[in-house]
């Protein structure tokens, strides 16, 4: 479990904390009610940046806390359904919450789904800390897809530790294609390739 306490504290200071308290209590008792609360979170908890927790908005945090309130025996099923029937904001909130939830690697298929999309917001959300569950081949492809789509590599958690020679080879090939097309390589990818190449030599 990572950081749910910080999200919780930050949200308590928001004006709509009361709605969230009721929703969390209801979800704990009747997990099947989470669908409506989850869909309404933006309208009830707001969508602004969460004070003190960079990278999180109020609706994402409220949704993460709702997910964390699910009873353990229902969490996997409900989380899968919420993602399946979620709009883009709901899907993104599920992806961002995964590393805080006690579901082990069960959320991995959701990451694969998000990485298959061409929605930059979902791809970015899939490459947070939970991406440690991706095997190395899938993770490299996802990183390369970020470069391809122009998603900043700063969204990739643990990039420095996990980037390897094979990723360097893929980036080098991509750089060659871009050069042939007379198109620039994104600066962050060029920097990464340069570093990986220097480490190798």
């Amino acid at each position: 479990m990572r950081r749910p306490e910080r999200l919780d504290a930050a949200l308590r200071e928001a004006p709509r904390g009361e709605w969230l308290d009721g929703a969390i209590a209801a979800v704990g008792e009747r997990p099947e009610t989470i669908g409506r609360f989850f869909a309404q979170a933006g309208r009830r908890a707001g969508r602004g940046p969460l004070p003190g927790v960079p990278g999180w908005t109020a609706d994402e945090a409220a949704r993460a806390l709702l997910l964390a309130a699910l009873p353990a025996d229902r969490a996997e099923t409900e989380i899968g359904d919420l993602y399946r029937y979620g709009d883009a904001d709901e899907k993104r909130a599920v992806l961002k919450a995964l590393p805080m939830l006690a579901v082990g690697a069960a959320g991995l298929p959701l990451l694969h789904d998000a990485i298959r999309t061409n929605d930059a917001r979902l791809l970015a959300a899939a490459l947070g800390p939970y991406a440690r569950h991706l095997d190395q081949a899938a993770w490299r492809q996802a990183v390369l897809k970020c470069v391809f789509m122009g998603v900043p590599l700063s969204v990739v958690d643990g990039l420095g530790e996990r980037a390897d020679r094979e990723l360097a080879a893929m980036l080098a090939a991509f750089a060659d294609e871009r050069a042939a097309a007379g198109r620039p390589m994104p600066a962050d990818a060029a920097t990464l390739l340069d570093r990986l190449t220097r480490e190798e030599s």
Partner: protein
Amino acid sequence: MRIFDPHIHMTSRTTDDYTRMAAAGVRAVVEPAFWLGQPRTNPGSFTDYFDSLIGWEPYRAAQFGIVHHATIALNPKEANDPRCRPVLDLLPRYLDKDRVVAVGEIGYDSMTPEEDDAFERQLALAVEHDLPALVHTPHRDKARGTRRTLEVVAASGIAPERVAVDHLNEVTVGLVRDSGCWMGFSIYPETKMSPPRMVQILKQYGLDRMLVNSAADWGVSDPLLTLETGTAMLAAGFTDDDVDRVLWRNPVEFYGQSGRLDLTPAVTGEPTFAGSSIKRGGS
């Protein structure tokens, strides 16, 4: 001229259309769920389509600076297929979403008992989810279909000002005006309604509760006929404010009743971030 197209099927349109629409002043659209030309055969086919209406399509629209909302429903034509009807049980999940601003398109195609049932159930869903309803009127037997539509709406208990009855013409507009419902007009290159005829209707019936849309889809249609109608209004002596009322403020007022209309200008993002992702999957 700022334009809100209250009924357009962007899923069937290209990025060229988005570019031309944005250049013409279209800043917001509502995309109603409807049939796709090719009949569907199972509920999953509908949910994938609904997912697109609340996921991929608003994302695509945003990259051209256009705000996209949707209406969700089982359409009347496919309500007749027992293989599709189970989607009615899946609708509540979608009717709670942020960008869903009405139940629709519902109504009649051939006026069968199955259509009666789906229409009534979905009007009840609109009341339950506190949403307006967008009602399609049949292409054939339109006057009788419109009368029956208004009877069903009245019996459902939904407030008439929360209902738009669409695809109207000279024959059906009076019925709908008298009911208190909003009047929708789909401007088409050849069929339903043309810009000059629309201008005549506005002269005769006024601007209250009037909605003008292109209903552009996969058939012969033109997403810029809203603009052409606005231009025809000006040529006929209507003011800029009149045009703004019909093409912007009216649809904002109608869909605003959902409490979910968010017209914050779409974020187009850096061209290398969001922008390039649509151009053929990235590059």
